[in-house]
């Protein structure tokens, strides 16, 4: 199977939908229609492809990790999304959405951000296209990712702290949705992951399928079997994972998403509805959404994109959990053996490979290196002393 379009109501199996305040329903319908139209329009596709090539630096290479592979006994390939402009995969989605927003006549972007990577990408696209940009970021995350806050400001965006609840990504999403309810006439909500109300989970996936498409072609040339045994990526909302999975869903490759143990929606959640979607969600006995706790601000989220819930429930992908301590190990090991400092988010996927290296012995693993670690260096300096 390849990943399919959602149903008429925006569902992947039982997950997804459009659970938004009435005020936003027409905006979501308009966005869905505009995206369908744009995605079928070769002019739009060409314009986006040109931006991805000339501005973002695509295609991103695949790097074979010789020293790491030798140390682990597992052949590890990295899809280098960390080498994109702005330092992560987030730029793929943001360029698509900003281009679409412009086509819809919107003049302003509002976005949420966790680690700041999506906020930086949104601010970048807004600067490029001459749009206004406001980014909501949890107060806690603003402290641990001060460098990205400054980058967003340099790029001309306004950064607003989300002060409610856990003051992390979940609350930044709430604030962005509240802003959008008030400004929907001239504003596009540039959502940063494969989550939220229909059409976002589908649209954001489509903007990231470029990762899977390139990887598939690159693996065909690089690997004797053409297909890796395992494709793995970290999962918060799950956009980088769905992007790389999309290239291999119709193959024999095993698809493995890796969640932080403190924010494992698939691993520890039950179906629930928040942020416009039905999906696995960490919640208490009454349905109150629980706060996630992860070393990585980008994965510090109690929910997950609905398509991941679906892929898990039908058994096409499986989801593992790793601890903060395992992530810190992985972060250091990759830096030391390959000269690549990973972001804490993709370090989760590597942490799983390290832990399961005995089971993976002799296999080929393609890992989505979704972002570079510069943003995390200050935090790691404190942790490692």
């Amino acid at each position, binding site marked *: 199977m390849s990943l399919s379009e959602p*149903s*008429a*109501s925006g*569902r992947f199996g039982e997950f997804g*939908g*459009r*659970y*938004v*305040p*009435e*005020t*936003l*329903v*027409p*905006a979501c319908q308009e966005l869905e229609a505009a995206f369908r139209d744009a995605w079928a329009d070769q002019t739009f596709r060409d314009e986006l492809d040109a931006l991805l090539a000339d501005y973002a630096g695509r295609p991103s290479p695949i790097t074979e990790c010789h020293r790491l592979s030798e140390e682990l006994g597992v052949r590890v390939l990295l899809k280098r999304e960390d080498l994109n402009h702005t330092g992560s995969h987030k730029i793929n989605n943001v360029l698509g959405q900003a281009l679409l927003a412009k086509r819809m006549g919107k003049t302003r972007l509002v976005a949420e951000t966790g680690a700041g990577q999506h906020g930086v990408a949104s601010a970048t696209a807004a600067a490029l296209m001459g749009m206004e940009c406001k980014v909501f970021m949890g107060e806690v995350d603003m402290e641990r990712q001060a460098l990205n806050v400054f980058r967003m400001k340099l790029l001309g965006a306004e950064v607003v702290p989300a002060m*409610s*609840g856990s003051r992390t990504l*979940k*609350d930044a999403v*709430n604030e962005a*949705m*509240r802003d959008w*309810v*008030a*400004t*929907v*006439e001239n504003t596009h909500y540039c959502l940063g992951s494969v989550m939220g109300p229909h059409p976002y989970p589908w649209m954001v996936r489509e903007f990231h399928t470029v990762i899977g498409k390139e990887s598939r072609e690159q693996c065909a040339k690089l690997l004797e079997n053409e297909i890796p045994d395992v494709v793995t990526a970290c999962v918060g909302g799950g956009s980088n994972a769905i992007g790389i999975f999309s290239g291999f869903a119709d193959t024999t490759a095993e698809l493995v998403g890796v969640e932080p143990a403190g924010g494992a929606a698939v691993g520890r959640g039950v*179906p*629930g*509805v*928040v*942020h*416009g979607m*039905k999906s696995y*969600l960490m*919640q208490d006995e*009454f*349905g*109150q*959404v*629980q706060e996630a706790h992860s070393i990585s601000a980008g994965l510090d989220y109690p929910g997950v994109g609905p398509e991941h819930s679906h892929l898990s429930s039908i058994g096409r992908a499986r989801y593992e959990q790793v601890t903060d301590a395992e992530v810190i190990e992985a972060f250091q090991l990759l830096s030391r053996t390959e000269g690549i400092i990973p972001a804490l988010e993709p370090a989760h996927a590597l942490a799983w490979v390290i832990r399961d290296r005995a089971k993976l012995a002799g296999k080929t693993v393609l890992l989505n290196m979704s972002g570079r670690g510069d943003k995390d260096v200050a935090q790691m300096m404190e942790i490692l002393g």
Partner: protein
Amino acid sequence: MSASLADEGLVIPDAPTEPGEFEHSLRSLRDSGRKLLVAYVTGGLHDEWPDVVRAVADAGADAIEIGIPFSDPVMDGPIIQEASELALRDGASPVTVLDTLRTIDAGVPLAVMTYYNLAFHMGHERFASSLYEAGVRAAILPDLPLEEVGPWARAADPAGIETVMLAAPTAPDERLPRVVARSRGFVYAVGLLGVTGERDALAASSLVIARRLKAITDKPVLVGVGVSNAQQAAEVSQVADGCVIGSALMRRVVAGEGPAGAGAFIAEVRAALDAS
């Protein structure tokens, strides 16, 4: 499209044609020439919240919306967010709020206003019957729009819970009649583009949406979101059948004005409505 929604089990059942108890009560008052006032009170906020409910009823609210606090209230502004957070910190849950509600004889119809996940998590049938047993007759779920309301409405309608639908300024003309047709209890006209909270002046959009709705329905049309004081309540009720007051009331409760302060404020709004 409708065929595939049927495949997905998402068909929206027609609302029962007869008004339920809640709507019947509001209609009778409206038809007697009274402007309607619905007050919102966050359930579980301070031990005295049952007294706030009684005081607000005694001061002239025609119905009361009890907010069951939710962790992620995306349709609410700072005041109701704070009220919800404080109540949750005090241990409020759907169970504690409904258990307490059972003991309050407010003498006016009760609705709950909460977010869909609490109903989904408990199960639609169980949530609807828990509401009914607690004396509640209507429910407002602001993150459950028309297209998603089917599975809940199929449980709520037969359980005697009237689901109030929100009608927003952004709805095109072809959409409003469908929202109105599915709305029970009353039609909740969203007064402005934005979340709940006080505003300095009544938004022009609140009169526009009220007029659009009054032109297509004889169900009670109440404007909420951004109706902040007695004068604004009177102004909007020139066109609408009345209004919902939430944040302006809860700001006083959060500030510690207690049942007396809450009652005094509602009495002031009541007087302005009666004089208009």
